[in-house]
Each structure stands twice: as C-alpha cells, then as structure tokens.
C-alpha cells in the first residue's frame, strides 16, 4: 500500500495510477538495466530571519519534480523534470535510458516496500506546526535573551527554518517506498563589542520535528545565551598555539572529527574506485583499542536520520570501526552491487535533480570509561577544544582539518585561558590510533550539521565522548 500523503502529494495531481507507473517502469527499466529509480519529490521550505530586533524578512519555496536514473554496470544515465506528468517523465526516462546501448523493456510489477518499524519522526508538516506570530515569537525570545545576557552585544541575528519533504522512490525492481520528512532549525549569531574589539558567537539546533521544540525547555533563549557565552569567551581569547600537541576534544559536535577523519573515507564510492586512503583496509587496525564508531540513520528525531534512504532502502546502524578495527563501508545500491555487498541505507541525494551517492547519516563514537575531568587532569600541556566550525578532508591523501571556534589552553592538568579559533590538521587513517583516553560522556550534536559532497548538501549528525589525542597539529600563530 502506498502512503496516502505521498500518493496525494506526488501521484494524484498528475493522475498517476497503477497503470501509469507500470508504463513508466517498463519504459525506464527492463533488460540490460542493473538498477536505478524514479525519485518523486515535493519539498516546501520557509525561512524567517530577525535582525536589529525585528523580523524583517522571510521566504517560502516550493519544489516538485521527478528524477529518473538508469544504471547499467558502472554507468549511470540521469534526467529529471520539474513537471510530474506522464509526457515529461517518459521523455526523461528515454533520455536517462540512452546510457544503455540495448535491451528490451519488460514488465515489472509494482510492490510496496517499507522498513517494518515505527516511524522515526512524525509526518506532520512543521511549517504548519505553529502560526506566523508564534514563529516570530521564537525569534523575538532568542533576540531578547541574547541582549539581556550581556550589554556588550551589539548585533543579534537569528533565523528559523522549516522543511516539509515528501518522497516516493520507485526502483528498477518495481519496489515502491515513501517517506515524509520534517526538518527544523534555529540559529543565533551575536556580535559583541568592547573597546574596539569585536567578537562573534553562534549557536543553534534542530531536528526532525515541529517548531514547538524550540518553545519547550526554554530552548530558544538557551541557544541565544550559548551564543553570547561563546562571544564572551572569544573576547578574552589570546593567540592560539602553533605546532603539534596533546588535544582534548569535548563531547558532541567536536565529533566533526570523525565525520572528516574517517567518515568520508569509508563511503562506498571512494572505496570501489580505490581513491580513498581507506580502500582495501577492512580488518586492519585504524584506531586505538576501545574505539567503536557507527553510522546510524535510525535515531528517532535526529537531523541525520531517515526512515528510508533516497533509494528506498531502510536505514540501519552500520558499524564502521569496532574496537579499533575497520569493519565496513557505507553503501548505496550501485556501489554495494559493484562491491558484492548490500546497501547499508546510505544512498542519499540533495533533491530529485541530483544523483544519489553514499552519504553519512548520524556518525558517532560510542562512550568509553574515563571521567572527562580525569582526561583533562592527565594533560600537562595541551589544547582543550569544545566547539568547532566545519571541517574538510582530502579522502585520497587522508589529510583532514576541522576548525575550533572555542578552545582553551590546558596547563598542568587545568583548563586555563581561552585561545582564538585555530584549525587542527591530521591524517585520517592514523589520527584515531593516537587516542589515549575515551570519555564516558558520549553526546550527539544539537542538530546543526550539513555535509557537502560534490556540491550536494544533506543534513547529518555527529557525536562523540570527550577524547584525548596524543599529538595533533594545532594551527595557531604562537610557537608552542
């Protein structure tokens, strides 16, 4: 049975019933085709922003279309249409199919496919979850909390965004899967000025639920106060050290380390092509004993979670590294088939107009046993980094960076002065072998991550416990 909302949103307006889907399948796939899909998508999103204490702009966007992908061997043909209607779809299907040289079309029966488990998020449209005044109220609350927190705050910029996305995937085997995905996010940035010095701080969060989340537990104001706290810390920050030193990473969002250092390198496409520094290393030690890292798309309500991926495969928990040993890669359908394995539910795409590829969902390290305070106390001289901007990796050489936005110097086992933001650089295949202590305080990030790969952005999550790494290069300006 097809999800009724997906049917009403994507199929009914174009008059697409069973016989039309049969025709589409027969035209698109058949003999000589190894895979592919018709990916129907409807997405509406809105964004409200506040500046100078007033909500002065907002935007609303609607996208609707179908992407048709035909895979034959290692080859992919792809065309899309922003018109969900039979003539346009059949034209796109014939165009996509031009990648295969031969093959007769055959009859393929449509069959529903679903994960057979509880939905990970509620299908309600988050944009309708509050009225306009209440949305504006959230932004005003954050603004007021930021201004009340410190008189040195000169600028507060807040934005509130929501997405309602309905997808329907009909694959080459005739399997039909649907997903209705909500996503909301609140971001706060402040500028603080004192004696001519200006510093900024930012915070935010979100996930796959409605806007009411931000009204509960004083969250909107808490994000604002957190942004102000970061700006306050930066106002006192001294020049960051330069050189190799011991680094203690805080829990939660610093897990961007895992995303860059090993996550991308374990995506199936790079490994099939042999372009990843991790290619051919399954079974080898790539991290210290005690380190277990998973990619898990099944965490309820998380920003990186999906009921089914963009190929209709149910998401799962995939063990990437177990007790320091490399166990597996993240796969989409095509790369799994070409590597002789199964999709891990990591096939994702930005929209119907882009091709899917192996992507992360929520990538995190399981907790260890050390008390976080003990970890800090064990370092005589080092860096304690608790907040980060983004990161980037060269998957072939394995070199990766991530940029600290809040960090402190550790001296004699104590956290001392804050230091300015600095980039940390390392080598993915060996940085985790230098982890010497793993905290018992695993945390997931607040729901702020977007991962970019080949120009496609998708929402993701990261997480980790407090970690001690014995030797990373810290890119400050002061000789250490």
């Amino acid at each position: 049975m097809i999800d009724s909302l997906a049917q009403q949103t994507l199929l009914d307006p174009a008059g697409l019933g069973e016989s039309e889907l049969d025709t589409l399948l027969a035209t698109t796939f058949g003999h000589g085709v190894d895979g592919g899909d018709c990916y129907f998508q409807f997405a509406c999103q809105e964004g409200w922003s506040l500046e100078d204490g007033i909500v002065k702009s907002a935007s609303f966007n609607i996208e609707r279309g179908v992407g048709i992908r035909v895979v034959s061997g290692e080859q992919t043909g792809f065309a899309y249409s922003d018109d969900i209607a039979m003539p346009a779809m059949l034209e796109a299907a014939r165009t996509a199919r031009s990648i295969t040289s031969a093959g007769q079309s055959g009859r393929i029966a449509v069959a529903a496919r679903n994960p057979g488990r509880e939905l990970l998020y509620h299908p309600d449209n988050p944009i309708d979850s509050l009225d306009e005044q209440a949305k504006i109220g959230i932004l005003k609350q954050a603004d007021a909390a930021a201004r009340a927190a410190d008189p040195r705050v000169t600028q507060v910029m807040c934005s509130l965004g929501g997405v309602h996305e309905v997808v329907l995937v009909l694959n080459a085997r005739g399997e039909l899967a649907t997903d209705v995905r909500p996503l909301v996010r609140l971001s706060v940035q402040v500028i603080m000025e004192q004696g001519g010095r200006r510093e900024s701080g930012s915070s935010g969060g979100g996930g796959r639920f409605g806007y009411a989340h931000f009204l509960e537990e004083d969250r909107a104001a808490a994000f604002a106060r957190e942004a102000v706290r970061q700006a306050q810390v930066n106002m006192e920050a001294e020049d960051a050290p330069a050189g190799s030193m011991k680094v203690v990473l805080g829990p939660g969002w610093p897990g961007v380390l895992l995303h860059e250092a090993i996550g991308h390198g374990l995506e199936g496409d790079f490994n099939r092509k042999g372009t990843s520094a991790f290619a051919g290393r399954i079974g080898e030690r790539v991290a210290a004993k005690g380190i277990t890292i998973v990619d898990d798309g099944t965490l309820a309500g998380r920003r990186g979670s999906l009921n089914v991926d963009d190929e209709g495969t149910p998401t799962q928990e995939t063990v990437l590294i177990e007790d320091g040993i490399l166990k597996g890669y993240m796969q989409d359908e095509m790369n799994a088939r070409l590597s002789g394995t199964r999709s891990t539910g990591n096939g994702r795409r930005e929209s119907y107009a882009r091709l899917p590829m192996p992507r992360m969902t929520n990538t995190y390290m399981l907790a260890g046993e050390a008390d976080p305070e003990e970890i800090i106390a064990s370092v005589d001289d080092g860096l304690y980094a608790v907040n980060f901007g983004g990161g980037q990796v060269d998957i072939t050489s394995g070199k990766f960076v991530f940029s600290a936005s809040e960090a402190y110097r550790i001296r004699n086992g104590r956290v001392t002065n804050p230091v300015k933001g600095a980039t940390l650089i390392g080598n993915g295949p060996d940085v985790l072998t230098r982890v010497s202590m793993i905290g018992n305080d695993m945390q997931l990030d607040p729901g702020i991550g977007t991962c970019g790969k080949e120009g496609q952005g998708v929402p993701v999550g990261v997480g980790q416990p407090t970690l001690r790494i014995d030797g990373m290069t810290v890119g400050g300006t002061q000789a250490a």
Partner: protein
Amino acid sequence: MSEVLQTPATADEPQALSHDPDSLRARVQQALDAARARGASDAQAVVSHSVGLQLDVRKGEIETLEYERDQSLSLIAYFGQSKGAASTTDFGEQALLDTVEAACRIARHTEPDPCAGMPDPAFKADTWDDLDLDHPWACDATAAAELARAIEAAGFATDSRIENSDGTSVGTQRSIAFLGDSQGFMGGYCSTRHSLSCALVARDAKGMQRDHAYRVARAASDLEDPEAIGREAAERTVRRLGGRKLSTRSCAVLFAPEMARTLIGSFTRAISGPAQYRESSFLLNAVGEPVFPAWMQIEECPLTPRALGSAPFDGEGVRTRNRPLIADGVLQSYTLDSYAARRLGLETTGNAGGARNVTVAPGNKDFQALLREMGTGLLVTELIGQGVNQVTGDYSRGAAGFWVENGEIQYPVEEVTIAGNLKDMFRSIVAVGTDVDRRGNIRTGSILVEAMTVAGE
C-alpha cells in the same frame, strides 16, 4: 525601457531552451501583476531557465551522463516597508499564484523596515551593451565522451605513476533569466558556461595523492587544448607525491593564483553591504583607509565582455559599472545593493548579487620571478577547511604545497596549517604576479605575503 535582443530558440539550434524569451517575460509580468492585484505596493520578480549536460568519464568509460533542465520563479513583494519572498520550480498557473500569495502572506507578517524597498529608479539600467555572454556549444553526449576520453588519456600518458582516475568531466550549460519590477524595469539575457575538468590519482610507496586541472569559459573556443588539461592534471598530481610535514616556523608564503583568489574573496566579503551593516567585518568602516600596500590596485569590472562574472545590471536592475575598489592601497567603496546603501546612508553600487570580476592589477613579475623574490618560504597550492573569521580577520587553514629555497622548489609539503590575521596579511603583501587566473569571478595572479606562521611537527 529596452532589453537585449535575442533570437528565439529553435529545435535546430544548439542548446535550444525550452522556454522562449517572450513567455518568460510574460511570466514575470504575470507575477508582478498578481502581486499588485493582491495589494502589494511594489514587487520584483525573476524567472530563470537553463538546460545543460554533464558527462563524466572514468578510466575511459562513461560513468555518468546527466541532462539538466531547470526553471524557477522568485518574487519579492513589498507592502509599504514590509517584505516577503517566495519561489518555486513549478511553472504551472496555480503554482505561480500560490507563490505570489505566499510572498504576500509573509509580507503581511514581517515587520516594517525603514530601509526596505525598491532601488531609486534613477540608478536603473535603461540601455545596456551586449556583453558577449551567450555562446551555445553543439556538444552532445557522444562528443562530450570523446573529449573527456582524450583529456583523461593524455593524463594517464603523462606519467606512469598515475594509476587511477577520479573522473574527467565535460559540462555545458545555457541559461536565460528575466528580471522585472513594478516600476517598469524588464530585462534579461542568455548566457552560457562550459567547463572541462580532470582529476587523477597517483601512488608511490608512501601513499596516494589526488589533484585536478580545469577550464571554464563562456565560449567553448576559449577552453584551450583538452590534452593540455590532462597533462596539467597529471603533473599537478605527481608532483605532490612524497609530501612532508614542516617543523613549526614563521616564513614567507606565496599563494598560487587559485589560492590567492580565496584571500581576495575574504576581502570582497568584508566590504559587502551585509558585513558592514551587521558590523561583522574585519574591514568595518574602512573606506578611506589603507587596506593593502600603496602600490596595489583592485577594480570591479562587471562589464568585461565574455568574463564569467559579467552582468549589465544587478539583481535589482541597477546598472553596473567598472570602478575601483582599492586605489593605491586605499579602500574606495563597499559593494552595496539598495537596501545596504540605505542602511549605511550611501548610494547603491549595483552589487545586488555580489561583486563581479574583481580584478587585482598584476605587478611586473611572473611566477618564477616571484619564487626568486620569495627566496625561502612556502608555496601554497591547496587550502582546506574554513578557518577564516570574517569578524576579526583571524586566519588559520590547512595547506599543502611546496617548500622553496633559493627561489627553487625543493619538495612537496602537506599536513601543515598557515595562520595569521587578514588585516596584517593584506598589508604585508610583497608582490602580485602576472600569472593571472581568469577562471572565476575573482581575477588575480599569485600573491606573496611577507610572513605567516606555518604549524607542522
């Protein structure tokens, strides 16, 4: 007001568009009229459409063939000084009305902003020159595959250490866009963008390295010899093999043109309207102040024919003009749209949509001469990560490149960071090379900075 003349697309024409100019213009007008009918005091609409092909070859075989066909309508509605925006990719009649309704609904909820509104009509473009931006390319999938194979084969043939490919791409796109507003402005034009790129992987005992080469141009005839691209990709990849870390030190840094462009990118962001009125710039209120050395000149050249950043009018229909941003090292102007201009009590500079063809005047030394001028230091050919704080100018990024002594490249360097503050880095620029990279919206040669902190082992 007039518009660019252009012939309607026919099926025989290469890269024929699916919507003709008249229908796009009519759609813009329909959206504007619908907004006025719903009580909007003013409105501005953009309709755009593009067709394209992207083909990737890897190890001699076609890997992906993508046909693109995009369209969108976006509308801004003003109700006095309240504003709402909406957009859609759906070109149906109902979707147009829904989009207009969404913009109007939002405008009824946003709060009035005294600076909101349309640009002063006196600044609008009324006539403009053809900037030679439309060069359709008759490149079908077969031709694209042949071209990509030739590029990649040239790469593999260059050096036996090239053992893998990360893909060779041929991309071509043709777009048309019309902008109209309720004050009577209506203008639009076609443009094309074609690109070739090749990424290769080399291996030695120490491991693998990847690098790439690319070309991008408005006209396919400006893309140069495809085999040269393959060779360049191979040479760039192989020369990275055997990279070493450096010990932590302070030294001169020479940014290769593609990397120098990112420094100038930080400059253009810092002088943009929003960075100024949000007080989020390390060059806050810096007009009239020396930002670069007194011998440096930087111009914005939106009217350069065939250039990738060219446009005869900005995103609000305001005429663009070539103008100095830095004269004798001193900042001359910010880059403003009409909103930012009102916020700052200035006039729009025709920069709705950003700065265009920002051009750093080259000095008199070529790349080799710059290496000799540096003598000892780090040549940076790749930067990774964000690591730039636009509020303070603090700069710390991952880098790869080459260690240089006596003006000659000694060995490849990787896994280091370079750090400093952009204000100091700009003022301590020693030279700009004649090796200008014209493949983007920022045009500069190599930039030599006197000293930065390099962190490594």
